[in-house]
């Protein structure tokens, strides 16, 4: 089961993932990200604090946007991952390609430096 919630805070769009992302529902994550970007998001944060599991299908969705993000200067970060999920990002070295921060309060200040 995967539930997606969208929140806007200041200049940032937050997409909260609740539940588990696998090959049966990763397309929903893809659609949500696409929608948010089409609506002109400049900084997308993924709230992973209620994400219990993510397989390669979900990781692949994030990876497929990384080039676009850097070409279009769109900020992107993930926060709130639990230990198990966070380790999965590390296995592939995705923690070096995606900005992963511990919590929302850190994430919300990203890119705001003068």
């Amino acid at each position, binding site marked *: 089961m995967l539930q997606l919630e969208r929140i806007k805070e200041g200049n940032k769009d937050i997409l909260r993932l609740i539940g588990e992302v696998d090959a*049966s529902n990763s397309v929903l994550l893809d659609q949500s990200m696409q929608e948010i970007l089409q609506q002109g998001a400049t900084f997308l944060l993924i709230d992973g604090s209620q994400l219990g599991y993510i397989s390669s*299908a979900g990781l692949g969705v994030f990876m497929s946007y990384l080039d*676009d993000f850097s070409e279009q200067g769109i900020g992107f970060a993930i926060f709130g991952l639990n230990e198990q999920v966070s380790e999965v990002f590390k296995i592939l070295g995705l923690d070096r390609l995606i900005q992963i921060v511990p919590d929302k309060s850190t994430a919300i200040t990203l890119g705001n430096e003068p």
Partner: protein
Amino acid sequence: MSHKLKLSCCTAALVELRSFLQLSLKAYGFSEVDRHQLILAVEEVCANLIIHSHACNPKELIYLEVKELKKKLTIEITDKGDAFNLLEYEVPDLKKVIEEKRKGGIGILLVKKIMDEIEFESKNGKNTCRLIKKFPSAFEP
């Protein structure tokens, strides 16, 4: 002792696979992080089979057995049909996957990083993939 599961070839069955593994892996002394990764590795192999070898046909089945073999954890995944030999599968470069905006291809990379050994054999139309992991050092099978 072994745990067995018959899995229907549809991606909706993956959640059932995870709860089966959650239970059957409990007995072996793995940490929560290790169990999570083992579940992920098995799911990646099964998702691959479901989508690529069985075209998500829910009438077709994959058979799983979790057991102890030669003092190691062995998860045996059996199916019939087109063989997918993950030992021969060339793992893609992460940078390339990103450049090509591919949404797949990294699952098998995860499996190879998580498992200690992978065996594959195909005989008389039956394919067997064995994912093997050493028990934690404190665990006595």
